[in-house]
């Protein structure tokens, strides 16, 4: 590369330790993240109403107190989504808002839009939801016992491993178990959606996979991908958790939770619905309970 670009040779880039190009802005507090953008006039602030149960059928939902709460502009449920209620990248099994059944504690069920984040979060607590509580699978053993797998089993094989093991002079057995972990990126999940011309949406969001967000939002809102512009300036940490990277699960288990695309999707949904700018700033507890985490794993030999 250095041969092709004399500038790099001249400035001594190669084998030189250079400061990170945002470093001076970051240490001055001048590097801009999504929540640092000035609020557009009329901005709606969004919050999820979430499941209090790990696994349950939703028998009835009374959201009248949520709608009547101070500052609330509107409330959205799965029925209000104009396109496909799914934010999974591949498997088509991860609704943005749960309908009929919740599969993990903290799963988003409805969306509140209000004049402030505090008003939205406060109102979201006022829902009355009747659950038909079902058995929850909270660890690997109970998932295996119930035959509830995250995805179809896959086999990778080369040669005759069983025969080779049978012929081996030593055979070791053991198990490695790793607990679940949250990525704990310092900036919570967040997105800011603004309406453009002719039903278009602009999204400022903190995502590692803007093109996937674009496609999911388009499907969700029944738009063309060309109608959705996704802008990512920088992220406050990600570690893979801001990228949709795994297929999603029907397993009603908290350890299989994931939902990284939620903030851009909910912000876009709200903007599409009300033609207002909308911002989804997800609190730390909701970020940890409703979005991607690494489930526990166990390997035995």
């Amino acid at each position, binding site marked *: 590369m250095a041969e092709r670009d004399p500038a790099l040779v001249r400035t001594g880039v190669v084998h030189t*330790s250079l*400061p*990170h190009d*945002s*470093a*001076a*802005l*970051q*240490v*001055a*507090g*001048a*590097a*801009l*993240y999504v*929540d*640092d953008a*000035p*609020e557009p006039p009329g901005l709606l602030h969004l919050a999820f109403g979430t499941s209090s149960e790990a696994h349950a059928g939703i028998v009835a939902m009374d959201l009248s107190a949520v709608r009547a709460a*101070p*500052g609330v502009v509107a409330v959205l449920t799965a029925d209000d989504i104009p396109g496909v209620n799914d934010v999974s990248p591949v498997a088509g099994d991860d609704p943005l808002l749960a309908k009929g059944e919740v599969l993990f504690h903290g799963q988003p069920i409805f969306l509140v839009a209000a004049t*402030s984040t*505090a*008003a939205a*979060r*406060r109102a979201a*607590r006022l829902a009355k939801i009747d659950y038909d509580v079902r058995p929850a699978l909270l660890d690997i053993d109970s998932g295996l016992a119930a035959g509830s797998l995250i995805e179809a089993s896959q086999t990778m094989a080369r040669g005759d491993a069983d025969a080779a093991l049978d012929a081996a002079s030593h055979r070791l057995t053991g198990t490695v178990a790793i607990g679940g972990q949250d*990525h*704990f*990126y*310092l*900036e*919570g999940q967040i997105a800011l959606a603004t309406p453009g011309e002719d039903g278009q949406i602009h999204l400022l969001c903190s995502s590692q996979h803007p093109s996937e967000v674009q496609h999911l939002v388009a499907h969700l809102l029944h738009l063309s991908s060309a109608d959705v512009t996704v802008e990512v300036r*920088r*992220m*406050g*940490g*990600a*570690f893979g958790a801001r990228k949709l990277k795994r297929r999603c699960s029907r397993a009603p288990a908290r350890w299989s939770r994931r939902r990284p695309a939620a903030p851009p999707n909910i912000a876009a949904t709200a903007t599409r619905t009300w033609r207002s700018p909308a911002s989804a700033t997800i*609190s*730390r*507890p909701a970020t940890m309970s409703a979005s991607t985490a690494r489930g526990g794993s166990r390997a035995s030999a």
Partner: protein
Amino acid sequence: MRFLLDGETIAIDNADPTGTLLDWLRYRQRRTGSKEGCAEGDCGACTVLLGDVSGDGEGVVWRAVNACILFLPMLHGRALMTVESLAKDGALAPVQRELVERHGSQCGFCTPGFVMSLHAKAIGAVGTVDVLVEDVLSGNLCRCTGYGPIIDAGRALTVEPRDDRVLAARLRALREAPLAIRYDDPLTGTTRQAFAPRTTDELAELYIAHPEARLVAGATDVGLWVTKQMRVIETLIFLGDVADLAGIEESEAGVTFGAGVRYSEAHPALTRLHPELGELIRRIGGTQVRNAGTIGGNIANGSPIGDTPPALIALGATVTLRRGGERRTMPLEAYFIAYGRQDRAPGEFVESLFVPRPAPDAVIAITKLSRRFDSDITAVLGAFALTIRGGIVAEARIAFGGMAGIPARAKACEAALIGAAWNEATVEAAVAALATDFAPLTDVRGSADYRLRVAGNLLRRLWVRQHSPDEPVSVLDPVLATHG
């Protein structure tokens, strides 16, 4: 309410008494350098510096605090510095230059908080003098594996106290009548009121008039009631301006702490009482929490896992409560009656705490067990104060946190020790007696079995330490700093 931001007077009319400084900075002032990472005083991304006029009136005493759980009235009459305050005419401050040159930022979201915590060290702020950089940064989280370069940047800094004579004069001029706020909150349809008395007498009078008020010292607990639980607190009395609640008096007999003494201010005196107390303070929250939370608050809120009560109970501390002009003093353990219930009448408040000086031959061990070393909530905290004479345990005071609904003495364990020979059999009998003393809960911080087992192991550890001083019983090097 008024305060100084970069030396300029800021007046806020109609301040929400439970509005946070972070929201005000970010959404009212558009000073978005301070970040919200957790909104509960844990990650330090919102770290700012607060300044008070120094004792001699000529300077400003600065301390790093978390803006996310700092209520606006707590700024009244103080000086504020944020990450935007540091660069002058486009030139970065030394701490900023060090962080850039040493690659101390990656995603950058935690960076403004680290800048402010290290800047606090660079100007000799409270809780940073003669303290390891690692401890200065105990309340700042980074997730991009940047601690090494950040710590290097901190070590490279030279301490240069500011010349704050002009600022101190402005702060003195800012001192007005004690704060009293009424705020109509359209969101909850409530009217909130807040007071900030200047003397203990005023506080006593106010609290009689408003026994329903919530007393707020550092807001390291109450702040989360608002940011996380969305609780509405209608009447607040802020204690940060009550000057005669913040005294420390050391004598031969012991040390008296006013209830408003912050952990970081109490740290040196507690370390002089006993190094184990100093180590305990080092384990409470992070620097920003220790710069806000108070000894009195840790007692008054009655938490079963407050860190200082078990230690203070083991050392035989007494607490003085005041209601109006009346005072009463009781052993600290008597204050805690049951979970959520304390021996405190309406309008009565914790005024001071007396900690007797341990005898030179006292055997004292205090250990906090939590998943993280810094900034974590206790699973079990054990505090032991033994007197061993002629191979016999003459006296034993043992208290635990996290083992019951209150911080509590382990009476059966003590009884198994007192009068017995100090040997392994006695220790094992005393460990077994803990099962009589406590039936701990299982929760996210530990199971009942874990708690009972480690409580016993803490006594075993004390025995090993006494019996075989050369055996290592801790992988941690105590940092007794230079407070001694």
